[in-house]
């Protein structure tokens, strides 16, 4: 997130003497495009409340499973007017089992910018009630239809992004410190302790990760609030990620300890521990940045996989994974309702962007690993 925000700032066009990695990342067209998209996604996630017409929990059970609202540009006379939506009514036909929404004649509800709607608090702090666009009640604006509870799919995509996009980073914040400390300790202490610690890490790596994931997710205590569940799912995801990293870090620590400059520092009387910290961390930094960028998408994918089998983020919270799952529960109807695949598309785009950035970042930070 920080990285993305940092990048959006205009880059000084003056050619610097020595290009920073960020500059070189920015120069790559694909990476720049990906970063912009990621920036946009994170911006949307952060400011979901003012950007969307409805809140995550808004529901009107009278308009459940509705198709996307039709936005009209022409009035009855065929003249172009302000875009508006019409009130809809639900009917059911016993013969065909068809539940349909028909538009009611009337003047309709014009789309309004900066409309006053449900109150919210951005980041839980900044209060407001202005939404970028929307329609007056009792009109409904469901750009991607509504779900089984009459909630707005479009708005929920934004709130889902909050979960899906942060879960990757939060996972990193847990997995990486553990991995680095564990690996660092193991490499630093060495001997039998190192051996034992590495066996445990290997054991975790040897259990097929998806089964480990569902096994752990199934362990979650049932009575949890949605935020606790979210936190624990994150912990579980990171549990899968740390062992591999620990091994790499350990290897690095071992080799760096033997490097001349570290030996020299040791000879100069610097305490061994600080010594390693001081020299190892910078050395491993670029590896970690690249690994982190590539780890985020795998966390997002894992969450969607967990959701697919019903162990991920639970309703009524929205995540892209559980929204996609809701769509796939009616897989046989997707042909008629392709808009339900939107969360899948967003997962795809996000991961694609992360992978692109990660690839380029690796080229930039670690020329030796170029292109891998």
């Amino acid at each position, binding site marked *: 997130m920080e990285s993305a925000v940092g990048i959006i700032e205009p880059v000084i066009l003056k050619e610097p003497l020595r290009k920073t990695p960020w500059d070189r990342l920015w120069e790559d067209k694909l990476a720049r495009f990906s970063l912009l998209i990621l920036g946009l996604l994170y911006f949307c996630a952060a400011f979901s409340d003012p950007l969307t017409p409805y809140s995550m929990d808004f529901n009107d059970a009278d308009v459940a499973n509705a198709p996307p609202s039709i936005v009209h540009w022409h009035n009855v006379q065929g003249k172009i007017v302000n875009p508006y939506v019409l009130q809809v009514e639900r009917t059911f036909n016993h013969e065909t089992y068809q539940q349909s929404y028909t538009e009611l004649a009337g003047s309709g509800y014009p789309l309004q910018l900066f409309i006053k709607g449900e109150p919210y608090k951005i980041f839980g702090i900044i209060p407001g009630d202005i939404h970028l666009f929307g329609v007056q009640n009792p009109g409904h604006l469901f750009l991607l239809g509504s779900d089984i509870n009459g909630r707005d799919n479009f708005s929920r995509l934004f709130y889902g992004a909050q979960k899906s996009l942060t879960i990757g980073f939060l996972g990193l914040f847990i997995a990486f410190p553990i991995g680095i400390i564990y690996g660092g300790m193991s490499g630093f202490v060495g001997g039998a302790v190192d051996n034992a610690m590495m066996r445990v890490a290997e054991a975790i790596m*040897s259990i097929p990760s998806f089964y480990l994931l569902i*096994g752990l997710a199934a362990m979650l*205590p049932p009575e949890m609030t949605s935020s606790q569940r979210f936190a624990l799912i994150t912990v579980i995801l990171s549990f899968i990620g740390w062992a591999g990293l620990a091994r790499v870090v350990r290897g690095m620590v071992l080799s760096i300890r033997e490097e001349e400059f570290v030996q020299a520092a040791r000879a100069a009387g610097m305490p061994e521990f600080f010594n390693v910290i001081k020299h190892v961390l910078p050395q491993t930094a670029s590896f970690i940045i690249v690994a982190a960028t590539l780890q985020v998408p795998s966390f997002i994918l894992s969450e969607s996989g967990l959701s697919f089998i019903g162990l991920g983020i639970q309703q009524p919270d929205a995540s892209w994974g559980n929204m*996609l799952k809701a769509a796939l529960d009616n*897989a046989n109807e997707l042909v008629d309702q392709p808009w339900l695949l939107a969360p899948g598309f967003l997962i*795809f785009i996000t991961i694609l962007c992360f992978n692109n950035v990660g690839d380029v970042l690796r080229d930039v930070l670690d020329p030796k690993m170029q*292109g891998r």
Partner: protein
Amino acid sequence: MSVPIFILKRILQALPLLFIISVMSFTMLKLAPIDPLAHLRANPSISLSAIKAEEERLGLNKPAPVQYAIWITNLLQGDMGISTSGASVFVLLMQRAGNTLKLSALSILFTWLIAIPAGVAAAVDRGKFVDKMFGILTSVGMSMPTFLFALLLLMFALATHLLPIGGLTSSNYFELDTIHQILDELKHLIIPVTVLTFVSLAGIQRQMRANLLDVLRAEYVRTARAKGLSEHTVIYHHALRNAINPLITLLGFEFSSLLSGAALTETVLAYPGLGRLTLEGVLTKDMNLVMASLMLGAVMLIIGNLLADVLLKFVDPRITLE
């Protein structure tokens, strides 16, 4: 160290590892608050005594450490126990292993057949159209949730009526002659193999590309070029062989994935593989089945790694086994 001693040593090292894995897996599964008999309990027509009998049969009425002790004693005697369905776990695994093997072997084959040339092409034309195209293609493969991709292909199959909707054999499979049986299975394998190949393409293609680029920068390649050898000869006679060597390690990993199955893909595509079996097992807390499956996965991984090290030694005698 000679190869046989190296193998022996690694096997001895693997034993405590397997023990840790088994304890970890067992604890994890035991901690999951899932009752394997919940469906029986919720069934008004199943009597209490029937449930008691079932608990007795599955050993669920004993404390967890005792259950683990029973499990591991049986395992050491070569008995994997019975699944909650009453069937022998060994038989269950064997039934599915063949199917999963077919799927993974074909997927690995196609992945390598496509990825190696694609990696070479991308390295040779670095930064040009071919490279970019493969870059995008592999990124797309990596970025799609497998279950979604599988489902989209199913939709395609339904719309075109060209391919079967999941499964592995047609209804008339056993009335067909051998050739048509093979063709029938292949037809059913097209979608799952496509999914798995597409997803795993990226890793090997990129590795191949990177290796070849590394090699092409190497001293001896420059020398070869300087000698005036054609670019073709340089790449295909000198560089390629050296670039492929490091991929041997990956082959070891691929080997270990042969029997781990692809749970989600298999589930969406109704494929009768080990992955689907294990997934169903985890979700219903079928202890013996899941334990056997996880241990199988771990053993395969250990063998795979060992295999990779030994193979590497064979292709590159300079490497010492430690």
